[in-house]
């Protein structure tokens, strides 16, 4: 199995660390992983994105122009990446701040009110975990126990007390994710 993911949003939304936790979780289940960020000053204020690949085999190119899953957290990223989702793939996004919603019919589309849920949880910082939870609900590519290990690995010791909070956020994400265009269903219907 190989899963090719792009996560894109504003700098400061925790895009890169979400990717890192996913990658670590992959390692925890003995997969090959790669994590390729956008980098440099243009990230200042601007958008940040990271390409994460989890695979059972040696990973060839860490840089891709089409993805199995796109996790989109602002309009610029929506404009850039909607078209790059492989037919049959998944596009997950946070509607807050999105003016033009995705139109594609050949992919599964899901939404998660990440920002809202995070502020309900009184912690903007775990916004990205809510989103990751939503993703893992739709695409359970890593087991929760590996996510737990992934969190342990990727968070510095001094932040380990925050792991439960993060896991709660993931759960919330899993509950609150909405599939607004389900390919399988569509398939079923026809």
């Amino acid at each position, binding site marked *: 199995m190989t899963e090719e993911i792009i996560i894109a949003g*504003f700098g400061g939304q925790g895009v890169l660390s979400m990717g890192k936790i996913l990658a670590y979780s992959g390692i925890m289940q003995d997969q090959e992983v790669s994590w390729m960020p956008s980098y440099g000053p243009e990230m200042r*204020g601007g958008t940040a994105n990271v390409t994460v690949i989890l695979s059972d085999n040696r990973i060839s190119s860490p840089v891709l122009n089409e993805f199995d899953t796109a996790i989109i957290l*602002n*309009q610029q990223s929506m404009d850039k990446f909607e078209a790059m989702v492989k037919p049959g793939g998944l596009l997950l996004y946070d509607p807050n*701040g999105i003016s033009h919603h995705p139109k594609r019919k050949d992919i599964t589309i899901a939404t998660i009110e990440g920002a809202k849920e995070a502020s309900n949880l009184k912690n903007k910082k775990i916004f990205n975990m809510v989103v990751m939870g939503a993703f893992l609900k739709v695409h359970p590519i890593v087991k929760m126990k590996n996510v737990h290990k992934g969190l342990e690995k990727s968070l510095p010791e001094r932040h380990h007390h925050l792991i439960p909070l993060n896991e709660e956020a993931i759960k919330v994400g899993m509950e609150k994710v909405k599939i607004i265009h389900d390919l399988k269903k569509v398939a079923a219907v026809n």
Partner: protein
Amino acid sequence: MSKVRGAVVIDSEACKGCDLCVVACPTDVLQLNEQVNSKGYNPAYPINHDACTGCKICALVCPDMCITVYQYKPERVA
């Protein structure tokens, strides 16, 4: 007596919500908006505009030159 009055116009798309003008304003005219602009920043706006004296302090400290300041000296009114 007539008191000098001022007003500010803030380019909310250029504003990066750094809060410097808000803190600098001696008469607490400004505040950051809850709503983010297209760049994801919370722009400043005059919440207490009548208190503005047009002292320019906000504009002097604004790194992004978002603020235009107006001043008006009304004629004494009987």
